């Protein structure tokens, strides 16, 4: 991180704060735990190469590898780990107090941290989906999945940033959502797709790739509306929560 920007007195509503962005980015990538994000995309790419060498129909390969692993596992897990740690780790450490004590609007803090989380997880998931989709099918399919993954990262990050503010054990709740709601119930009860980000992303991927090999699970309009509602709603609640945030005890 080079130039250290000083926070200018707020003139009108600011939504992005480069200093907070820099600190968040450093906290996210400058530690050993960021290495955790490397193996996930590597497994996806290795598997894509593997199905490419075998004589698997492209449709099945996309279904199992790119959707089954990329969209259903790697995207949400990346977004969960990053989304819950941009604010969550500062809350755990207690360093959030230093930011809260500065004359910076709470909205600015939440939105900056959210943007960093969404962009970083969107890049990690998007690039790996791009490579996997290109290897398995074609460049256009890869781009379709990458764009869908990027949008998905923005939705997931909003939800997980909110979770890290509201719930103390946000990672476990996020894991339960990914494993039980999207994983277990998503395959059994078709109705859960209305509230499943994974299904929105599949729908976006089907639309953007423009390929008959990928079929969307729901209507595009519904996916767009629900994604927007969840993202904006989660961010509004998150800003409100941080506004009335009080440091809780360290136990439990």
């Amino acid at each position, binding site marked *: 991180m080079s130039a250290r920007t000083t926070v200018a007195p707020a003139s009108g509503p600011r939504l992005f704060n480069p200093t907070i962005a820099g600190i968040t980015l450093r906290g996210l990538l400058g530690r050993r735990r960021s290495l955790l994000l490397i193996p996930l995309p590597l497994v996806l790419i290795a598997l894509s190469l593997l199905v490419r060498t075998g004589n698997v129909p492209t449709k*099945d390969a996309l279904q199992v590898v790119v959707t089954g692993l990329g969209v259903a596992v790697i995207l949400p897990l990346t977004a969960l780990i990053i989304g819950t740690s941009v604010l969550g780790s500062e809350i755990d450490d207690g360093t959030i107090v230093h930011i809260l004590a500065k004359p910076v609007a709470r909205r600015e803090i939440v939105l900056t941290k959210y943007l960093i989380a969404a962009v970083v997880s969107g890049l990690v998931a998007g690039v790996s989906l791009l490579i996997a989709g290109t290897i398995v099918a074609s460049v256009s399919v890869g781009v379709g999945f990458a764009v869908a993954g990027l949008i998905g990262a923005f939705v997931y990050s909003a939800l997980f940033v909110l979770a890290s503010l509201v719930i103390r054990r946000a990672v476990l709740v996020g894991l339960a959502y990914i*494993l039980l709601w999207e994983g277990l119930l998503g395959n059994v009860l078709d109705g859960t797709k209305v509230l499943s980000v994974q299904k929105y992303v599949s729908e976006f991927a089907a639309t953007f790739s423009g390929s008959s090999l990928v079929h969307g699970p729901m209507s595009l309009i519904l996916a767009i509306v629900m994604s927007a509602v969840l993202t904006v709603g989660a961010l509004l609640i998150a800003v409100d929560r941080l506004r009335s945030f009080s440091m809780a005890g360290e136990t439990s």
Partner: protein
Amino acid sequence: MSESATGTIHDIGYQRYTGARLGRSYSVRSLYAYSLRTVFGLGRGPKSKIFPFSLAGILLVIAVVVAAVKARFNVAIPPLDYANFPGTLSFLLMLFVATAAPELASRDLRNKVLPLYFSRPIGRDDYVLAKLAALVTGVFLILAVPELVMFLGGAFSAGSASGIWGQFTDLVPGLVVSAIFALVLSAVALLVSSLSSRRAIAAGAVVALFLVTEPINGVLAAIGTGATRELAGLTSITGILEGLRTWLFAGSELDIGSYGPAYAAAAVVLVGLCTALLIVRYRKVAS
């Protein structure tokens, strides 16, 4: 006034401890019991109980429903019979170990309490084995209790001694499979958790490991033929468990050919390796 020291040492009643010294096995047992309580959040605040008890509750409810359906309509649900119960609901088990293992391992690392443990007559290996045993017991309990409920439901609606015996011979494989699942999942989860002092990161890593290896198995099974296909399950943790279950008690669409013993060996090696690595890890850990 305090200058007037006369050098007298007053006898204020210091005494040596002359009672029984309970020794190493007692402290290991205490650590085991304490850790088992920790797995379920007992002795902690209500927030720590939410996850373990709701997961155990979901498993129990599913078992009750299965037992009721079986008794009322005499319809068996093959994916949820005794031996298939742990495999079908493995997502819940993953979540359970991802909750419990960091609670056992990461919390002690985070709070740097290991020196306190190791200054007692408890060895580093004892510590690891007690924690592992507690986690295995916890996972086994949340599986065995629902299976017993299903057994009771089946036994009371069986009506004849041979029917009850039939239920019992189905229950035993279920308990064996549950024990295997408990051992393998716990060993892997505890090892992963012992590498991070942050519970949240450890939980994420445990689930990531289970989920990411799973599709490898599926892809290999899809593209491979013959031996590759039959050995594909070895590439994922759930695959090893499913393969072993198929070899022991048959009755699944999984094709493992004649490689059953390979799956058994893989499970043994996996548990052994994880336990050995845990022991090595705790010999090195700063305290």
